[in-house]
């Protein structure tokens, strides 16, 4: 069946833009990339059939500008817009602007985005739909509760409590408060963060569940109201509410729990009038086996490859088909999850500096490959890691018959990566995967903070063989007569073996 559109604007950057453009190619759709001035040579721009510059590096003037993106869609002749994740993907006003311009928005209806986008309103809606929510306080709909009300609510709920931004997601504006005397300071900081990140400082407060597992269900629905879940993803390996490792199936769920939670997730989505791809997130107390609705993400999720690997479905292609009006040809009972999939997120973050974002030029970058290994990335060797944007470089995914086999595959995949030039969390990922707790699936959402507090990369001396390698490889790349470069950057320009030469040649020779 042909689609209702033939040209798609991808309103994103990085690995997800590349992923979406790949799906466009496979479906015979023309792709249009948009980019900021600093991204003119980025991989998503190099891959798309057409690329338009939409503004300066600052995301608020480029990837977050509804006006500029809709204008770019018009100018390019695109008939549909895929928002990816992050940026404007959960912005109902953006979806409405796209639709008002006569274009297809590849995502849920704006009404469903609004229903789920306001975390406080979503809590109320879920309670009415019979979906369990974490005990908490959000004030009346549309009214941001004052500090006094939040303080009183915290006393009622009991410490520890979790402060969240009503408009939020991704850990921004989110804070755990364990003592009453710390509440005021954290409310102020959360409000500042929420204002910066979402332009809305409204907060809500919830009971904080210790040792919680984060388990989410992938939802897919068509415009006729057929809704299914594509099983769960366990995303409990998080650092400050940022997911690092995800897997499916969850080591915690049995068939009965999976079925119960899956049906609850579908009910949650149905109550919002949902269609297209989305994710219902639950927090689960492993002691009581209680689970609570956390939020629904009304977009494609970063960790969607995990679901694709176990179900064999291409979620991005299904997003296009659903947006085009196609109906789901399968029912819940037709769907099966096969084997085990794990994803590790490679971030340009410096573990030795509290995991702060690090930039740099990728002097060497090569990805693992082989049976059961999938890497979704938005960079290649020679690229500059831009500090303006999300530090996610690549997602390394492994699929195998069972969890142990998938873990073994991941260990080898991480060993076969090569990244030089930007500091990444790569070694940290290896230690997470190798830890006995993770091996046994006993990982909760604060495990990283507890188990890896103060973690630093090991500083052990290199094996002698590597000293030999250094002597052979680096002899050509060095020049005794020059002062050391304090930034550790550029090699001698006259040195034919310097990787800088290769890198620059790559950039200037490649498409812009």
């Amino acid at each position, binding site marked *: 069946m042909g689609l209702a559109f033939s040209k798609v604007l991808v309103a994103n950057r990085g690995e997800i833009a590349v992923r979406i453009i790949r799906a466009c190619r496979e479906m015979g759709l023309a792709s249009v990339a948009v980019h900021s001035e600093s991204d003119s040579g980025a991989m998503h721009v190099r891959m798309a059939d057409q690329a338009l510059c939409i503004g300066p590096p600052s995301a608020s003037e480029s990837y977050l500008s509804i006006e500029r993106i809709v204008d770019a869609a018009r100018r390019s002749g695109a008939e549909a817009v895929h928002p990816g994740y992050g940026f404007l993907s959960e912005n109902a006003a953006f979806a409405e602007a796209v639709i008002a311009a006569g274009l297809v928005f590849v995502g849920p209806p704006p009404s469903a985005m609004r229903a789920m986008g306001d975390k406080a309103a979503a809590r109320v809606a879920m309670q009415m739909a019979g979906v369990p929510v974490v005990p908490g306080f959000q004030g009346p709909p549309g009214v941001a509760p004052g500090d006094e009300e939040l303080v009183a609510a915290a006393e009622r709920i009991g410490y520890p409590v979790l402060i969240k931004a009503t408009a939020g997601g991704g850990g921004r504006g989110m804070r755990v408060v364990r003592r009453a005397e710390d509440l005021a300071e954290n409310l102020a900081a959360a409000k500042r963060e929420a204002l910066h990140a979402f332009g809305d400082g409204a907060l809500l407060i919830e009971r904080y569940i210790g040792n919680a597992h984060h388990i989410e269900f992938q939802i897919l629905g068509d415009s006729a109201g057929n809704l299914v879940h594509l099983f769960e993803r366990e995303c409990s390996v998080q650092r400050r509410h940022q997911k690092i490792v995800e897997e499916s199936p969850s080591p915690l769920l049995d068939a009965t729990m999976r079925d119960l939670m899956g049906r609850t997730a579908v009910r949650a989505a149905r109550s919002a009038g949902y269609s297209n791809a989305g994710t219902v997130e639950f927090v689960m107390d492993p002691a009581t086996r209680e689970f609570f609705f956390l939020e629904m993400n009304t977009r494609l999720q970063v960790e969607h490859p995990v679901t694709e690997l176990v179900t064999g479905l291409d979620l991005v292609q299904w997003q296009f088909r659903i947006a085009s009006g196609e109906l789901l040809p399968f029912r819940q009972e037709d769907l099966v999850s096969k084997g085990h999939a794990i994803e590790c997120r490679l971030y340009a973050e410096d573990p030795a500096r509290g995991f702060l974002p690090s930039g740099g030029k990728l002097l060497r970058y090569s990805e693992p490959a082989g049976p059961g290994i999938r890497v979704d990335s938005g960079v290649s060797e020679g690229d500059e890691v831009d500090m303006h944007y999300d530090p996610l470089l690549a997602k390394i995914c492994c699929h195998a018959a069972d969890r142990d086999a998938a873990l073994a595959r991941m260990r080898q995949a991480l060993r076969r990566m090569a990244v*030089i030039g930007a500091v990444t969390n790569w070694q940290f990922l290896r230690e997470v995967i190798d830890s006995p707790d993770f091996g046994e699936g006993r990982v909760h959402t604060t495990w990283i903070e507890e188990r890896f507090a103060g973690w630093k990369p090991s500083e052990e001396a290199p094996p*002698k*063989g590597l000293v030999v390698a250094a002597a052979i490889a*680096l002899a050509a790349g060095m020049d005794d007569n020059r*002062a050391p470069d*304090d930034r550790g950057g550029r090699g001698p320009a006259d040195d034919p073996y310097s990787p800088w030469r290769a890198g620059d040649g790559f950039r200037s020779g490649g498409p812009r």
Partner: protein
Amino acid sequence: MKQRFVSAGSAWDIEIAHRDGALIADVNGGEHAVEILSERPGTLTLRVDGATLVCDWAADRSGGWICHDGRVWRFDKPHPTASRRREATGTGEGALRSPMPALVVAIDATEGQDVEGGAMLLVLEAMKMETRVTAPAGSWTVKRLLVAAGQQVIRDQELLELAPRDTGVDAEGGEDDGQVL
């Protein structure tokens, strides 16, 4: 050619020579048989004492990186001038530097203020996340604020100067050569 590298705090003297048609590496006085299996831009495959090693590498002016088996090692070729300057500026105590490119959101410290370790000095924001910069362990006086709220700072930019209290010693280091210390 004799070379000296420093990696992970250890120094290595290495010389690679041809002997009877084979390559021999002398590493800190111990000999190792070396065979170069393949050499491509940025990737080197060696056999050292019978074990195969695949290494990705990149070089800069003062050394380079070797990436092997999921890890990256930095190798520095010691530079006499550089090491002296590093010592002269000590550990960089006195000036607190920004750990990342960031926006200064708020400044809690004031010049002349006495602070203890852990005291909140200022708040940075990067990637929409706030980071608090606090005083290191000890007793300090805020000597000088070097940034203002609303200012964009680069990685390693000095944010403020602290002087240890009651010692009478000026904590500010010597000349600043911009080195990451």
